[in-house]
């Protein structure tokens, strides 16, 4: 019987290459496979290298670097470590540069309609009437953003001070990539400092990040951080540190 529970080091490049090219002894192959059962990092990495080999053979993989996996050796490690440390030093020393789209994407999450909950909390039933407002909010909840926009715009023409519908209109515009309009509507809701003030501040800050206006973003994030708590407090702090 083979040992079932053994502590293993993670797989080296040599282990992986040997395993995939069937060059390991039975004993060594068993050790590799046993380790993969416990270690998803190695298991996924082996899957990745297996795909890389298959892609290289089939010609699917197009990058110009040598196809063979790099062999683990001191020179490679030293050179790579030097590059990494240099890169790290650059990241550390110089003001951080960031990709605005990437930063936006890494913090952005769609806002889930919370109107049912809010209505229930305040004891008010959501209006069952078939109006542009209810149609617009329902369309938002169903992720039909273009319909949501047209219905809410229609409602807002008659009710320009209705902050809830303006907030949802801005959300739908943001989902549709109509960012300039979303910024305008979020600003209106944010400046009123009433319902959805916090949410509008957060999304507005994200849109400023995306449109490369870090100063405006920072200012809004500070308003979310300064109370010392809140729905977006942690995320705002985190995002500020990256601006």
């Amino acid at each position, binding site marked *: 019987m083979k040992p079932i529970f053994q*502590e293993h080091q993670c797989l080296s490049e040599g282990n992986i290459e040997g395993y995939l090219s069937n060059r390991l002894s039975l004993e060594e192959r068993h050790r590799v496979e046993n380790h993969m059962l416990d270690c998803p990092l190695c298991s996924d990495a082996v899957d990745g290298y297996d795909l890389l080999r298959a892609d290289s053979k089939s010609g699917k993989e197009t990058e110009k670097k040598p196809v063979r996996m790099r062999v683990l050796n001191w020179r490679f490690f030293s050179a790579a470590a030097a590059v*990494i440390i240099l890169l*790290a030093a650059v990241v550390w020393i110089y003001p951080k540069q960031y990709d605005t789209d990437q930063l936006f994407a890494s913090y952005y999450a769609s806002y889930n309609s919370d109107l049912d909950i809010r209505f229930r909390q305040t004891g008010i039933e959501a209006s069952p009437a078939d109006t542009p407002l209810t149609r617009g909010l329902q369309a938002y909840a169903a992720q039909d953003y273009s319909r949501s926009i047209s219905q809410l715009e229609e409602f807002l023409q008659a009710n320009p001070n209705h902050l809830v519908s303006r907030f949802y209109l801005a959300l739908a515009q943001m989902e549709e990539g109509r960012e300039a309009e979303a910024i305008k509507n979020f600003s209106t809701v944010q400046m009123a400092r009433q319902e959805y003030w916090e949410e509008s501040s957060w999304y507005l800050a994200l849109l400023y990040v995306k449109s490369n206006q870090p100063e405006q973003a920072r200012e809004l994030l500070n308003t979310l951080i300064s109370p010392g708590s809140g729905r977006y407090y942690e995320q705002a702090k985190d995002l500020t540190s990256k601006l």
Partner: protein
Amino acid sequence: MSSSSPHTPSSFNEASDAELLNLFQKELKPDYLGILFMRYRHLAYGVAYKYFREREEAEDMVSHVFSLLLEKLPGKEILSFKQYLYGTVRNECLARTRQLKKEGQRQQEWAHTENSDTGFMEIEELVHLTNEQPLDEAVQEAMEQLGEEQRICVYHFFFEGKSYKDISDETGFTLKSVKSYLQNGKRNLKKLLEEYFKRASSD
């Protein structure tokens, strides 16, 4: 390098992950993280390639993850660097994949990265126990409680020393299923053995 460190520059390669992480978090010098990261860089690359099937994307992801770690690790309590690294690579790959496909947005996953079960099996305690106590009877008892597919795969793998592929050929299970039966079988075996030893120690 710091004079407060018990390691000389030449011995940093022998330092444990926890020691290097601790040094990095204490002194905030990227060199320590660089040495630690290099131990797993090739694995991060393999994981990223599994998601993207493109070398350049995978390379970019590895660099991205390193810079994320530089930012996120200071002040963070980490139980296992490689577990944290795996969670980070996986989450960032998923986020990037979604971004590439324009299908959705990234979930708020940092908490998930740090707290969730990412599939790593902690076996230290069991290794200790199985080194000290006879295992045959315990394993026998535990094996009987496994589901049939898991028992077959575990038997072939651990008792007969067969490979995933041999087992697949012999049983007709796909390679993926064999791996899955073995992962779950081993996990269940671990739980059952822990219970067995707990019972034995309380008797």
